[in-house]
């Protein structure tokens, strides 16, 4: 694959006269871990939602592996190889961890009819077990997802996002509300997954420590536009970024 | 020509009453995200309250109308909101919709058990004597139905757009969360909506029952027609419900006269399916704001 995995071109989005995103463009190459940061109200959530198709941009285009995706429904986008995690807890609380993870893979296996009449696990149990082992969740395999701790649920959420073997995963504030021990385990797993599978990540995050240590490249947004872009080291020392954060 | 005019005018007169019911339905939909499947029964019942006032309490007809209106607003507005909608809404929209279906049965059967299964005559508000307009016989009653319905729609629109309370109600309907932040007493506004709905239903009841006769089963078709009018016209618009009501009233009569009487009941239904297929936001509706 030669072209960028994710390509964002001149995205514009206004809400009743307020220009939330002003002509943002960037590319993400295969295997990159891109951090998207910015102060509150910088437009990063709007941009994120435009990429995910939740919002229709006023102008510009988002394409994944060269295919325009604006306005696609979430399930369609997922089938094009885009996985995501959620800011809020997003597991299926009354299903077991194993079932949660099998579910995350099954829509990519077979047809609707084979899902109706085929094997009850859609042939995914082994794959799901591997994913569980990868995130070190073995002891929780048969627990109801809703009975897990907050951090554990975040892990399950991430495992689900990876289950379909996506080419691009969008992580929406993965570190929010997770304690330190758990966080380092989480970061370790994400990095390992990226290293093993070469999956591209786009991370939106407030926790600077987490972003700086996980990402290979960072884009800083302020007032709807890109104000800086570079490696974590470059961003850390960029005076514009520091101004934007301090100036609010 | 006189036949066409006759059918058109009669259709408008009936449609105007459908519109009243549809508007109430739309208001409740906006305020509480509730599809009230008992709406037809809400129109059937006020006439019986009036009959109770006249025949059991011995009140005069006009006093009974006020009595009927008051009881309707109390029972179908306040009590409905407090005893059915408020406790069930947290369980989800579907649960509430089903509850209103059960409520429809409850009201219908109650009217039957307490006032009898047979239709009852209901005094006319206006004389039904025909007036000849270009060969079409139109009664004062028809004209008054039309005038009152249009007048009420106009007053209601003025109220919603020009008064503070009205604007607060609109804000509540559009975004209760934001309305709350802006200091609107959301609960009170929702309650007002229910009271207005009950009053509109009572008014519709008083206008049509002289011709339709008071009968426990009257709500069945009326409720259905009201939804259809609301959806066809556009769910999020008062004028949508008005247009929908008039349209259905006229089309129903035209179909019965010129196309087929056997399938006259099918026309509104086909219209409904076509609208959902082609223009789900309704004829007058805007697609935004219909994110329910």
């Amino acid at each position, binding site marked *: 694959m030669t072209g960028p995995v994710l390509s964002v071109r001149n995205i514009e989005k206004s809400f009743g006269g307020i220009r939330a995103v002003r002509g943002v463009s960037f590319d993400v190459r295969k295997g990159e871990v891109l951090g998207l940061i910015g102060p509150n109200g910088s437009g990063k959530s709007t941009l994120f939602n435009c990429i995910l198709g939740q919002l229709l941009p006023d102008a510009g285009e988002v394409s994944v592996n060269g295919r325009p995706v604006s306005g696609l*429904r979430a*399930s*369609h986008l*997922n089938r094009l190889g885009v*996985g*995501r995690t*959620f800011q809020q*807890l*997003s*597991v*299926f609380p*009354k*299903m077991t961890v194993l079932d949660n993870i*099998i*579910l995350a893979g099954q*829509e*990519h296996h077979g047809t*609707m009819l084979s*899902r*109706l009449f*085929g094997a009850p696990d*859609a042939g995914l149990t082994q794959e799901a077990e591997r994913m569980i082992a990868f995130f070190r969740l073995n002891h929780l395999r048969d*627990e109801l997802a809703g*009975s897990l*701790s*907050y*951090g*554990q649920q975040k892990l399950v959420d991430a495992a*689900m996002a990876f*289950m379909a073997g996506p080419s691009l995963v969008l992580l929406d504030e993965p570190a*929010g509300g*997770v*304690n330190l021990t*758990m966080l380092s385990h989480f970061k370790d797993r994400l990095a390992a997954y990226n290293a093993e599978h070469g999956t591209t990540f786009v991370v939106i995050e407030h926790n600077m420590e987490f972003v700086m240590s996980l990402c290979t490249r960072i884009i800083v947004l302020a007032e709807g536009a890109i104000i800086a872009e570079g490696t974590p080291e470059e961003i850390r020392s960029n005076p514009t970024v520091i101004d934007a954060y301090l100036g609010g | 020509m006189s036949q066409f005019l006759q059918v058109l005018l009669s259709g408008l007169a009936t449609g105007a009453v459908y519109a009243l019911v549809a508007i109430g339905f739309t208001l409740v939909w906006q305020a509480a995200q509730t599809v009230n499947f008992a709406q037809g029964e809400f129109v059937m019942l006020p006439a019986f309250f009036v009959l109770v006032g006249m025949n059991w309490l011995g009140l005069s007809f006009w006093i009974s109308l006020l009595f009927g209106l008051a009881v309707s607003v109390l029972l179908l507005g306040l009590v409905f909101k407090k005893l*059915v909608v408020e406790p069930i809404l947290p*369980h*989800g*929209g579907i*649960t509430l*919709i*089903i*509850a209103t*279906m*059960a*409520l429809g*049965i*409850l009201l219908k*059967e*109650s009217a039957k058990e307490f006032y009898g299964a047979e239709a009852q005559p209901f005094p006319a508000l206006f004389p039904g004597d025909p007036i000849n307009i270009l060969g079409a016989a139109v009664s004062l009653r028809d004209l008054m139905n039309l005038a009152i319905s249009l007048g009420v729609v106009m007053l209601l629109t003025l109220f919603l757009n020009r008064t503070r309370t009205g604007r607060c109600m609109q804000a509540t309907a559009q975004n209760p969360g934001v309305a709350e932040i802006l200091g609107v007493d959301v609960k009170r506004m929702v309650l007002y909506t229910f009271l207005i709905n009950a009053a509109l239903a009572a008014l519709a009841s008083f206008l049509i029952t002289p011709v339709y006769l008071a009968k426990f089963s009257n709500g069945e078709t009326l409720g*259905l027609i009201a*939804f259809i009018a609301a959806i066809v016209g556009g769910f999020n618009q008062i004028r949508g419900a008005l247009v929908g009501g008039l349209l259905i009233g006229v089309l129903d009569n035209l179909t019965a006269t010129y196309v087929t009487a*056997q399938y006259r*009941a*099918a026309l509104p*239904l086909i219209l*409904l*399916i076509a609208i*959902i297929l082609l223009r789900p936001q309704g004829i007058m509706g805007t697609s935004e704001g219909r*994110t*329910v």
Partner: protein
Amino acid sequence: MRVPWRLLAVLLLLAAAILIPLGQKNYLIYVLTSWLIFSIAAMGLNLTLGYAGQISLAQASFMAIGAYTTALMTLAGWHWLVALPIGLVLCFVVGLVLGYPALRVKGHFLAFVTLAFNTLVFLLLRNEEWLTGGTYGLSGMPRPDLGLFSTDKQLSFYYFTLGVAVIAALAMWGIVRSPWGRAFKALRENPVRAESLGVDTRRVTLLAFAIGSAYGGLAGALVTPLVQFIEPGSFGLAHSLRVLLMVVVGGAGSFFGPFIGAAVVILLPEVLRFTEGYYLIIYSGLVIVMLVFVPSGLIGIWGRLRDRFRPQRQMRGDMPEGARLP
């Protein structure tokens, strides 16, 4: 050792269903048969309402499609077993065609479309006399003869219906446990997350509605040989509403709910006979009260009782960090 218990209970009930009608009068057997038939219809609607969260008000119409298809075909000399699949496929296809436009739009549009459809079907059945016999309906349909087992007697027809109901229930069991059923459960618990994992809400819901409709057709196909007379009035909106309330009363979304709901609706007039005309008032009033306090239906009452007498499963507390953010 939880599974054998449940299995045992189901087997016990099945044994009861086999033994109870023996030596009973025709009326009771008739009531039991219609209980089974309505249970099948309610099972189908449960898939639409309980699992997919969409209101359908056309279950009686699908029963009508099933009933008229089998009636016309058996009257023309075809075997019931040949007519049945055709009726089912017809219901399934009609379900797809009907559900497609309604499910494209968010909201409760399926309720309105099915409401309209139910009345349309009634009008068609009444007006197209050349095919359906109009208001006079169709009569004299033979009961299926299964070679060694003739269903002409009331009791043998009951066992035949029981057999069909058991097969239908097993199929439903398979459906809700399949990967497709899992997608369904996921949709119910967290639709946004499910969509983001590739679950196509519209298609899954549409399929649920179509399968639910086919169950309605199956119930209708059994009505034909049971009553041996069908007419449009037996498939009106009131009947759709009745099936809907069965699902709700029993417990929408639970596997056994429809059986309980159907039993309640069929038997309640018997139990409340002493109240004469008031039973519908009492019934609908009870439904509203139930929706206020136990929206999950009679099954939900049972669940609550169970929770009261049994200690709840402990939440895992080994990693209690992280505020449970809203």
